[in-house]
Each structure stands twice: as C-alpha cells, then as structure tokens.
C-alpha cells in the first residue's frame, strides 16, 4: 500500500493506494500516528479513491485513528470510498461515527465545521 500525506493547515490528508489488510495496516498506522504525534495537525481526512481492497483490519485502523484524533479535539472524515469497500465499512458501523464525503474538498469542509 502506498501512503501519501499532505498537510493543509491544521488538516492532514492521507491518500491511500492499494490493498488495506492486516499486513499493510501496521505500516499505515505507524505512518499516520508519527505525523499526528508531531502535534501540527488537528483533523484527519482519509482518501480511499485508489484503495482496491479492504478488510476489517482497515476498520481497526480507521477507528483507532478516530479515537486518537477525537481525543485531541479534532475531527475526521473519509472520502471517495469505492463501492467494493463500502460494505465492510457499513457492516462495521463506521458511517454512524465518521462522515463519508464525495470529495477531498467536501471532507475538508466537514472537518472544518464546528
């Protein structure tokens, strides 16, 4: 899995490419947490547009990051979720706690609303 991090003000945008399973989850978690721990960003946006596969390990990564971001008073949004992975997220109840948006722009708006 390729992970592209970009900072936009107090927002961290993470563009994911490839397969998100238990194997790739460990590195993804470490990469995002290292950046969050710097304390420069408050909100987190995960862009799933180029994710070709995801299982429940991805749900664990999302919920774990949600707890961290929320614990520091930030917000989180997901965007551009492919149909193939929507089902895993829905069964796991993720849409009830994290908004799913149609674009990075919308996701940025979602985390900026207070």
């Amino acid at each position, binding site marked *: 899995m390729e992970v592209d991090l970009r900072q936009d003000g107090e927002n961290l945008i993470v563009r994911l490419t490839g397969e998100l399973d*238990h*194997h790739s*989850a460990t590195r993804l978690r470490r990469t995002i947490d290292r950046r969050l721990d710097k304390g420069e960003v408050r909100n987190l946006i995960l862009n799933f547009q180029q994710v070709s*596969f995801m*299982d*429940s*390990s991805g749900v664990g990564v999302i919920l774990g990051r949600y707890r961290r971001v929320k614990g520091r008073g930030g917000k989180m949004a997901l965007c551009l979720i492919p149909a*193939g992975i929507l089902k*895993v997220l829905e*069964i796991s109840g993720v849409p009830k706690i994290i908004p799913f948006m149609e674009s990075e722009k919308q996701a940025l708006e979602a985390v900026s609303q207070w």
Partner: protein
Amino acid sequence: MTGSGSFMKLEIPSRSENEAFARVVVAAFVSRLDPTLEEISDIKTAISEAVTNAVIHAYEDRVGLIVIKASLEGNRLIVEIIDYGVGIEDIEQARQPFFTSKPELERSGMGFTIMENFMDEVSIRSEKGRGVAVTMSKSIRSRDPIPGLE
C-alpha cells in the same frame, strides 16, 4: 471436499504477507464460475478475514501452517481455512460483532461478522490446543445470458 467437482489445496506459513496471496488464489480458483465483481470482492474479503485470524491468533509468537482447501460443487464454492494452533475457547463469543481478544492490536472484532455477511454459510470448529477450521460456502449466481431480458 473431494467430490466430483474441482478442488485445490494451498499450504502457507502464517505470515501476514501471505494474506493477499491466499485471497487472490481463492479468487482465481472461483473465477471459472464467472462470478460478478461483487461476488469476487465478497469472497476475497471473507478469505482475508479467516486467514488473518489464523495469522494473528493461531500460533502466538511463532510461524505455523495455514491450509486452505477449496472446492466447487455446481455453482457453489466451498472453502476451508485450517490452522493447528491454540484454538478458540469460546466460539460463540468469538462470533459476536466487535469482540476481539486483541484490542491492543486495534483489531475491530468484525472478522466473523464479515465472513457471515459475505458468504452464505460459515461454520467454525475448534478444539483447544488443536487448532481451528473455518468452513464457508457461497453460491455464485448464474448471470442472465442477455442482460436486461427476463
């Protein structure tokens, strides 16, 4: 599992880098039934959950063997994921949504729930200290030869 149809058997070490390999092999095996993209995605996800469970839970800090057997009976895929590890003490508890014995690894506890949602049938057999066998089946719906025509 060795009826009149096709069958396969795959043996892999319980390393996380083999999770992708296992799900791709089963997806390739079922491809002769001409499944839809959604069916392939469901099968890959369910296989990934079962194999990941074996990688994480079965052998604790050592690498052990995971066996994946699959067969086709008519339009039905039957797949079995077997390990010879520590076993599951309480299968009913393990099947509960959001239950995980490894919260420190940020496991979501949704593995069995996803298998049950994505496959037609899921059964789990386990004996403490002897391992786990998860058997799943899914019928592949035959496609309409002329799309849109009943």
